[in-house]
């Protein structure tokens, strides 16, 4: 694996781990980081979060990454990976 690819993957991993840590801590999820795949759905299936959790996610992203997720966009954040996309695009 070339260095550029390795760096990109490491950067992505860091964001994913931080997003998962924040969700687990803030939402009191009964999972460990390793138990949540990157493409796990947040709402409806997967983590089965609700609208109250959605508000917590917005606060969590602001707290951990300093990024503001508009309330109306939260339900377009469908998976852990889409949250990471949002963070990465604004970091």
């Amino acid at each position, binding site marked *: *694996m*070339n260095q550029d*690819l390795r760096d*990109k*993957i490491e950067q*992505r*991993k860091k964001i994913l781990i931080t997003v998962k840590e924040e969700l687990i801590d803030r939402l009191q999820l009964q*999972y460990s980081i*390793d*138990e*949540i*795949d*990157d*493409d*796990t*759905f947040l709402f*409806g*299936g*997967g*983590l089965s979060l609700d609208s109250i959790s959605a508000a917590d996610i917005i606060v969590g992203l602001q707290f951990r990454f300093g990024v503001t997720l508009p309330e109306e966009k939260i*339900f*377009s954040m*469908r*998976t852990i*990976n*889409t949250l*990471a*996309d949002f963070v*990465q695009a604004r970091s």
Partner: protein
Amino acid sequence: MNKLSKIAACYGNNNETIDWRDGLLVANVHDTLEKDYKKIRKGIALADYTYLGHFRVQGPDALPLVNRLCFSNLKGLPNGCLIPSYVLNEDGSVFCEVLVANCGDYYRVLSEGVEPDSVYALFGAELATAGWRASIVDETRSQSFVGLDGPYAWELLKLLSGPGIIGIRHLEFASGNQLDGVLFTLYRTDKTGEYGYLLQVDVEYVVDLWRQLLDVGRAFEIRPAGYAALDLCKLENRFTNIHREARSATHVLELNTRIVASRKKEDYIGRAAVENALDEGIRRRLIGLVLEEDAGNEVAIECGEQLYADGVEIGEVVNRAFSFTLNRWIALAFLDVDYAYVGLNYRLGGQRGDYTVKTVSAPFIFNESLRIRPRQDSYFDKTDRARTEYDAGRIVPLRSANCRHNRFPGVLADRRAYRRTIA
């Protein structure tokens, strides 16, 4: 056994092509793939699910038996709710997909991915080995299913069964609905990412139900959609397709199902292989791909094509389709876990040359149904043709009709009043 779907009696109005699905010949495409697809994504599509297996598990050990058969933990599944899961092989690969319903005094299992007779044989073998105080009844030949999928599927059902239908949430079901005196059970499954329902009916009425839904649904410009369009929608939403990527998976955990795997669950088929994978890790994982725009739409991704990073083979395409929403090719691939991250460009090596694909997050698209509020929105506010009909007084949506609003039973008077308005 007749290998042609009973609903095939209603085919012939379009350009249907039929193909095998779980041992039954059903419509692959009804009109064109794009037209079928757009009905699912923009309106209401009617789908033939008569190929589903259907089993009733009853008796004192019904729960532990179903739990033994399924990968997911069913303990705590409330009465009136569904859970999607898999039945595994002992090596941890997927045998079939199931939807399990808690019906109170028994469990109902809907299967897809292999012929129902094979599912029944596996269930029967399990039942025989452990002395379960339970019985399994194969109802595949006595009950049948049709599907309603689309952002306005709820509105047609509201017309048929009253506004209480809106209260049926994702993975809930309700029995005792009627259409012209025919009882049906309604399951909210959302299999395409849009509002999606399965209607279970006695097999002798399934053709009538199909015809009546087409008839009542005329105002909504309802059309049948074949399974190719349903598969495409599943792919766009990243819902696992048992006939594609799940069939290519050597282990269920490759399908991003880690959250389902529980070490606390009692024994189930494939448990040893799952626990081994939890300890040792898996070697590859499913990830979404889009063909970069510079490749052009005439270049198709094919299943079986290899992916490369720096000339090293890192994975293989296992599902692909042209997305009419994104106007580009999308695909799923099993990638070496070290490379299975989003936002990376890899080379796709096909017979027609090399192209760049980018790894992307699930899902591929945003669903129209997520924008819709059933208490405010209506199909008749959205489409020009329906709007014209509405303005001309030929369509009276339920909310404007003088209807009783019972939750489930019948509401036949409503439907008849509605039909008179469009006659």
